[in-house]
């Protein structure tokens, strides 16, 4: 099941390889079918998932494999290395409450990304091959339970992303692509070192060999006491935690490692922005929840305060930077930074409320930000500009677009009744309940006001009032006596067309539904998060 959902897009990519590049429609349809099949599988996984099993790591008295579901475990690479012993890498997939939500999110956003890629005209074949490779790699990251396998998928993501931004991006695409690539690579180099260190510090309780299994690594009983990252080696454990954290924080992206994100977003084509904000950023915080924190729980416990401060900086700094932006897409990019700060803050709380909030925020930010970037793409397609001041009064002329923008904008500013509110609320509830992060939470609530400020201000400048004199569109009085909007060289429908609605309406529905009744997602994650919190809490406090 999991192998299928991971490798379906790559299969589709292989099929596309065989299709002549002139057959653009076939290429698109193959990709869409793969994405839809992935979606169906995700729904099946969602239905079959048993929310009472915690996962994370071996429970006391339980199987050493932990209570993961849909597990696939095969020996993959086994090398005898003489004096070093043997190198055992496994093909080990499985999901628990933390990853299953991300699997659903990835399938959803990938499918919407394919639809959004429909308008790509340049080198369609190459584009979709890379896109499918990216989709596979992302999915693989979320289901891999072997650190080495995770690392392979993690690095595999970089390549297509680099080309997708670097070839199909905007004017300054090469700078953005290389910046993204180098930044992420920088993080992953350290990850590689820590991974190797961990391998030699952890013993698989079943085979007695060293192992890359994250399930074994998350259980402190499996560490060799005197090994490089064993419990005795306090300093190296701190170092390893920190460099891993930086590696993941770059992906989040956390201040001060965030500047690649606005550049990447501004240059990336709409579907890639959707994928980037919708899924890729979550890999950073997912990596923290899956690898960084449970493998070094005592270091995490000592660092909660610092992580919380960085979360607060992200929230407020991101909001202020967003307030200053003239480019709508850049504003949304900074809003992503601000909203991922909530995830960091929730994680830093270290309690169930905060972690549930953080994980739920990852899901909701995925859907809401996907919506935001799609909406930015809609207006950019028509007007060929994203300058906020080049619009004005759009509500009168594009009512459906304006309505969906309003929903998305309010979802982003955390309006109750929409999904983002619940996750932000839980983040704050958790962060405030934890004595460590209480004062950080009190400062971070300012983000609620400034978040509303930049979103409402942009909403007003673009959609309310009247057309600005130097707007990027003209008004014409139609046959019915009403004013109509006219974009230069835009032949399509002025308001949202069927394809755009197909992408946006499901996201709107999900956002509203999960804002009113969050249990379909929350129900799957709570058991695992509670277990994770147990794992993270040092014995002395537990």
């Amino acid at each position, binding site marked *: 099941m999991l192998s299928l959902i991971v490798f379906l897009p790559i299969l589709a990519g292989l099929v596309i390889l065989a299709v002549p590049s002139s057959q653009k429609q076939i290429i698109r349809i193959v990709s869409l079918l793969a994405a839809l099949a992935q979606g169906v599988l995700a729904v099946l996984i969602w239905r079959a998932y048993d929310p009472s099993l915690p996962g994370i790591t071996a429970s006391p008295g339980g199987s050493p494999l932990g209570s993961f579901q849909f597990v696939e475990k095969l020996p993959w690479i086994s090398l005898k290395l003489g004096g070093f012993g043997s190198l055992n890498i496994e093909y080990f997939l499985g999901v628990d409450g933390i990853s299953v939500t991300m699997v659903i999110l990835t399938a959803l956003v990938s499918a919407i990304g394919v639809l959004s890629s429909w308008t790509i005209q340049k080198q369609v074949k190459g584009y979709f091959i890379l896109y499918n490779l990216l989709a596979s790699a992302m999915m693989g990251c979320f289901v891999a339970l072997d650190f080495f396998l995770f690392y392979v998928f993690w690095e595999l993501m970089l390549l297509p992303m680099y080309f997708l931004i670097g070839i199909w991006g905007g004017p300054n695409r090469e700078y953005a692509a290389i*910046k993204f690539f180098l*930044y992420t690579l920088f993080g992953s180099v350290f990850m590689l070192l820590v991974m190797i260190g961990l391998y030699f510090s952890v013993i698989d309780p079943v085979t007695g060999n060293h192992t890359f299994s994250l399930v074994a690594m998350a259980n402190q009983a499996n560490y060799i006491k005197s090994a490089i990252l064993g419990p005795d080696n306090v300093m190296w454990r701190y170092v390893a935690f920190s460099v891993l954290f930086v590696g993941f924080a770059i992906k989040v992206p956390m*201040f*001060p490692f*965030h*500047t*690649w994100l606005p550049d990447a977003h501004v240059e990336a084509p709409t579907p890639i922005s959707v994928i980037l904000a919708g899924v890729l950023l979550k890999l950073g915080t997912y990596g923290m929840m899956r690898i960084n924190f449970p493998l070094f729980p005592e270091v995490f416990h000592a660092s909660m305060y610092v992580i919380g401060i960085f979360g607060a900086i992200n929230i407020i*700094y991101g909001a*202020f*930077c*967003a*307030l*200053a*932006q003239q480019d709508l897409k850049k504003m949304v990019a900074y809003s992503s930074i601000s909203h991922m700060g909530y995830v960091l803050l929730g994680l830093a709380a270290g*309690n*169930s*409320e905060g972690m*549930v909030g953080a994980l739920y925020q990852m899901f909701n930010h995925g859907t809401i930000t996907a919506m935001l970037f799609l909406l930015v793409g809609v207006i950019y397609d028509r007007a060929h500009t994203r300058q906020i001041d080049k619009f004005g*009064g759009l*509500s*009168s002329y594009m009512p459906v677009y304006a309505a969906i923008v309003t929903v998305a904008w*309010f979802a982003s500013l955390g*309006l*109750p*009744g929409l999904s983002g*509110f*619940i996750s932000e609320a839980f983040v*704050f*509830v958790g962060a*405030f*309940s934890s004595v460590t992060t*209480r004062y950080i*939470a*009190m400062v971070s*609530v*300012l983000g*609620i*006001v*400034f978040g*509303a*400020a930049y979103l*409402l*201000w942009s909403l*007003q400048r673009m*959609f*309310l*009032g*009247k057309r600005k004199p130097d707007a990027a569109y003209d008004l014409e009085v139609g046959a019915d006596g009403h004013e109509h909007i006219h974009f230069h060289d835009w032949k399509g429908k002025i308001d949202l067309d069927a394809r755009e609605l197909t992408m946006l309406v499901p996201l709107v529905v999900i956002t509203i539904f999960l804002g009113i*009744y*969050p*249990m379909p997602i*929350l*129900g799957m994650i*709570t*058991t695992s998060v*509670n277990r994770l*919190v*147990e794992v993270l*809490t040092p014995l002395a406090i*537990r």
Partner: protein
Amino acid sequence: MHSLIQLSIVVLLLPLLSFVILIFFNRRLPRRGDFIGVGILGTAFAISAYIFWSVIVQTYDPAFRVAWDFTWIDLGKVPGIGPLQIKMGIVIDNLTAIMLAMVTLISLLVHLYSTGYMAGDKNYGRYFAFLGIFTFSMLGIVLSDNLFSIYIFWELVGLSSYLLIGFFFEKDSAADAQKKAFLANRVGDIGMWLGILILYSQFHTFSFEQIYANLAAGKFAMSNAWLTAAGLLLFMGCVGKSAQFPLHIWLPDAMEGPTPVSALIHAATMVAAGVYFVARIFVLLTPDALHVIAFIGAFTAFMAATIAITQNDIKRVLAYSTVSQLGYMVLGLGVGAYSAALFHLVTHAFFKACLFLGSGAIIHAMHHEQDMRWMGGLRKHMPWTFATFTLATLALAGLPLTSGFMSKDAILAGAIGFANVEGGGVYYLIPALGFFSAMLTAFYMGRQIWLVFFGESRTHLKPADNHHHGHDAHSAHGAHDDHHGAHEVHEVSWNMRAPLVILAVLSVFIVYSPNPLDGAEGWFMKMIRTPATVVGPANHNCAALPAQTTSPLMAEALPAVETHVATDAHAVSEVEHAAAKGEHAFADPRQAEIAHAAHAAHFPAIYISSIMVVLGISFAGIVFVFRIIDPDKTAEAIRPLYLFSLNKWYWDEIYQATFIKGSVLLSKILSWFDTNVIDGIVNGVAVLVRNLAFANNSFDKYVVDGLVNFTAFSVNTTGAVLRKLQTGKVQTYVALLLVVLFGYFVFYFTRLIY
């Protein structure tokens, strides 16, 4: 599930249904579906009226309460806490029943009125949809049994007011006003949210009942200062919604919304939500928190009243009067006059809605003229509007026989009683500000009545350049603007008149109490009792006897206490006495003392406030009717003060210069920092690495590669030399071999010798 709960759920969901139908299908329905909105609200009101009937009239029990909840979010077995669930629920008590009936009634009347007022607007259907979601959110606040859901509906009210205030979104002023309202409310909301977080972090529940039970049991583990802070932070929500100083700035601007909307959200519901919420959390407010609340309320009442006296826009006067009256309610809660404050909430809702709808009728009839300077003489043309508007004005001013008189006096009596009990001189500021504001209220309302309804029409006096000054951008009526003077002013149609009459009737004393001088004898104040505090008098010194003070107000109040005791002439204990009068007996001595002192101050309050009202009205008469004092010359004489009032104490300018400019500046600075410093470092590192790479390249080229080449060169040279030896002749090789052998022997023998 109690049947009343089921009914209340229906009431709650009906307006939401109206919203959903109208937002999606209004263009496909005849009349854009306005009948659906009116019909649904009519049904909701009918059910609410039934709830009101069965709770207030049939049950008639001050302690009536039914509740129901369900698990909304289940967090499972949380480490350190155990099973944790977030529940949502509904509670119906007397207050809820009254608020339900009030909200649905006013919403129904506003719906009905809007069918006339908004007729012909291009977004007519959407307007009714927005009214629906607004009513839904408001009912949600009223019915909530926990802080979390109240916060949800609280923000939804913020959203719906955003939509309604900015209904004429093509006007920049409307778009500004809606943004301002939402943001000011959000500032209040974050305070409220922090207050909720403080309570949650202690008890892991949002439910009012459980929080109060835990507080009463003394389980609040943080210091008392945190408890006071929690109360004040929760109160910040009220400061935002109920437009108290310092967040009052949004309400007057919100007059950009359609006028019926002002009646709904700025008179009856949204602004009332803040006061309602403080009433819900009243029991957890510590005395310190209550003092702050009382002062903020008194200051707001006073400040807004001073602004209202100079405003020229008919709706602005009402807006500031709303702020001022909300100040009274907050003051009332702060001084512990709980039932009086809520009483004023309800009476104010009706007469202020009447005033707003009346002003809407005037604006409608005057073709969107809102400036009172160009009105005048309307009583002849609009007798119904005149009559109802005047009645509501009297209620607002607080003249006897009106509802406003009873409720305001109850608050002021509470304020006197509070000041007496607290015993400090500074506490007399609260009743003093209250009475002074009462005079101002009478003055500005008198001014409004005279300017609008009496004298001769001044439409022709309006300067032409002043033309586009703040009128509703009504697309259907926009065309009429150019010849407003030429139109005859007519009374409005029945669907706008009927709400006025109903609301005016609800401003008469008899609806609430048989005794026009004492609201406490009416059903309202009997059904709404001050709840006993759960935080106790721990940090409050109740021993300070009121008799020890010698301030002038005290001197007035003390004989009243004596008379009161003397007339009753019963040798009963205080508690029994209170019980006999149908009053609540308090376990908390401070509350009991204040309630008693307030009761004693009832008649002094009536005397003072009546004098104040008469003073205010006669002063308005002197200025605007008999013109003994010329208002323009007076304004000129006290110009700085006049400007201070006209410009609303310059709060907008102050906020603009500090918070708004500051935020924008900070955002620019941080954005610059981001592109130039943070990204500069990143790019700098990249350049550094690249230069390093170039240096490395040179090293590689000249040193590493040089070494390699040198090696190759030396091998080559050696090879060239050695090649000379490779002659292929055996003789040469043998000769070489002999040379080597000879050399070896020489070496060997040398070693042997030494």
